[in-house]
């Protein structure tokens, strides 16, 4: 898809980061990060506020110089070959990086011109992107009248003018309402189907889970865990079976049945929820059949895999950023 990649030093490895360090005074924002991001995936960088995600992205996008270590984009060093790197990337910042005083179409036209399009090509490209991102109607309006979601869309559109093979999205959905977030997620998924590599930072655990093929968890400037979303979840422990009976008096009986089938000790909570670790999902059928045969009626049944919130807690040993806890009902995923 991206022919330009055949000219790069390493078309297969979109990002290679080794021992990257950045200090701001005494504060070590990025404290020795190593990453390898293969071409063609969505790579999630997950961490609470102030974990060093944005600083790391800024170094990869040539906006900030690393103090130590190196970062390569398709084999090109961000420090020594910055100009080449800039031809390979698109950046959508945490704060919309578009011109507030201009309209959407003026913004896209100017960025297109800067990227080397002729006047008529720039006009064409602008119209095309406005259409694609549903901004045609608002094209002439000043950005001060734009909603947060429209701004983000424009910002993303501006990053896609040159169809860069690698796109950085720094917290693309922070502050968006749930509906706009899902729209944004779909747009991001489409980018990858077009052959681009996407590096996405987020503090929303479900966002990384929904989008990313691979996640690196960052805390206090360090990568503390990485893997696929399911690997990360598995690292915390297996899934568990939760049951609630209609008739509380039969709790012990049900617990016995579960124990005989799953071969593990169950646990009954004060509210009468029976929880048991579940190694093999196949066994659920056996449990449910046995309960039916014994005429024990169920009020609720669910199988829970650990959420990324739990993953984060388990790895870091401390809670994620405070606002995530407050937003718990919107960010946790219950499978």
């Amino acid at each position, binding site marked *: 898809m991206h022919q330009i990649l055949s000219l790069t030093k390493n078309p297969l490895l979109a990002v290679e980061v080794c021992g990257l360090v950045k200090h701001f005074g005494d504060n070590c924002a990025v404290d020795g990060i190593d990453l390898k991001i293969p071409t063609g995936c969505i790579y999630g960088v997950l961490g609470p506020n102030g974990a060093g995600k944005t600083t790391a992205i800024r170094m990869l*996008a*040539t906006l900030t110089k690393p103090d130590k270590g190196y970062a390569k984009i398709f084999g090109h060093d961000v420090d020594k070959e910055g100009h080449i790197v800039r*031809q390979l990337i698109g950046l959508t910042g945490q704060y919309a990086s578009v011109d*507030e005083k*201009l309209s959407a179409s003026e913004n896209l036209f100017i960025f297109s011109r800067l990227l080397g399009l002729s006047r008529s090509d720039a006009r064409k490209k602008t119209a095309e992107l406005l259409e694609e991102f549903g901004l045609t109607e608002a094209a002439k309006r000043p950005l001060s009248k734009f909603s947060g979601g429209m701004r983000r869309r424009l910002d993303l559109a501006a990053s896609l003018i040159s169809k860069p093979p690698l796109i950085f999205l720094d917290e693309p959905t922070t502050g968006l309402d749930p509906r706009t977030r899902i729209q944004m997620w779909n747009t991001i998924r489409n980018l990858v189907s077009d052959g681009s590599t996407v590096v996405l930072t987020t503090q929303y655990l479900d966002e990384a889970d929904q989008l990313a093929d691979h996640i690196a968890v960052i805390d206090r400037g360090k990568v503390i865990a990485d893997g696929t979303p399911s690997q990360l979840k598995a690292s915390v422990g297996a899934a568990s079976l939760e049951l609630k009976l209609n008739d509380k008096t039969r709790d012990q009986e049900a617990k016995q049945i579960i124990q005989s089938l799953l071969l593990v000790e169950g646990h009954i909570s004060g509210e009468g929820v029976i929880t048991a670790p579940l190694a093999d999902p196949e066994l659920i059928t056996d449990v449910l059949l046995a309960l039916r045969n014994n005429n024990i009626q169920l009020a609720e049944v669910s199988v829970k895999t650990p959420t990324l919130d739990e993953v984060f807690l388990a790895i870091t040993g401390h809670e994620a950023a405070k606002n995530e806890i407050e937003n718990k009902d919107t960010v946790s995923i219950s499978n």
Partner: protein
Amino acid sequence: MNRYYMNNANNIAISALTNRNGIKQTIRHSLTMAYRGLLKVRRTPEQLIDVTLQPILFTMMFGYLFGGAISGNVHNYLPLIIPGILVQSIVTGAITIGVQLREDMEKGVFDRFKSLPISRIAPLAGALLADTIRYALITILTFTTGYIMGYRPETGIMGILGVSLLVIAFAWCISWIFALAGVVGRSAAGVQGISMMILFPLTFLSNAYVPVETLPTALKWFAKVNPVSHLITAIREIINHGVISQDFWLSVIGAITVLFIFAPLTVRAYKRRA
């Protein structure tokens, strides 16, 4: 290079990735950035109010206020004060660049410029280019106000065009001082403050409004060495007498010196931050 890149997006063979922009691209990028500056002025014309009103207001105000006292009547004062106000307004116009650069560099859009494969210097060069339009506007307004008040320079339209070019080039050279303040300054308000501190002594402690001979010794000395005074004298002599004097050469040398000192300093500071 960039053109090739775009072609690539349309699946046409490309040559090679290069690690720098050519001079042609640099000029193109700067012109695009200048276009952006002009678009912003069109969107928010109020940012031109100070520089457009000042020449009109000052010419009328000081003309009628001081005309009688200094030159006997307003008409005789105009050849003296029009060049003075022209230079003062244009130097005031030149300080805007610093504040605008600072504001721009603090915005998110600057991050995007930095992440694009464009010439690093283009946003700065573009802003400076767009400013020449501002200077031209100031020049036109000052001479128009003067004309309405009855000013008819000896050398006619050629004289006006000549000094306009001189004063615009001068403003462009010294705007690098304020551009540097904008690049290294920490906030737009701070840059504005520093620029004003430079601006007021430079413009008022000159021969813009009153004959230097009437000033106390210390002020007289400053007003005489002040480059703004030299420029004003040069303009008066060209436009009123058609003479290119020593002051003309002093102003030109002064402006070029400023350019050669401050342009590299600004570019260096800018590149370090951008």
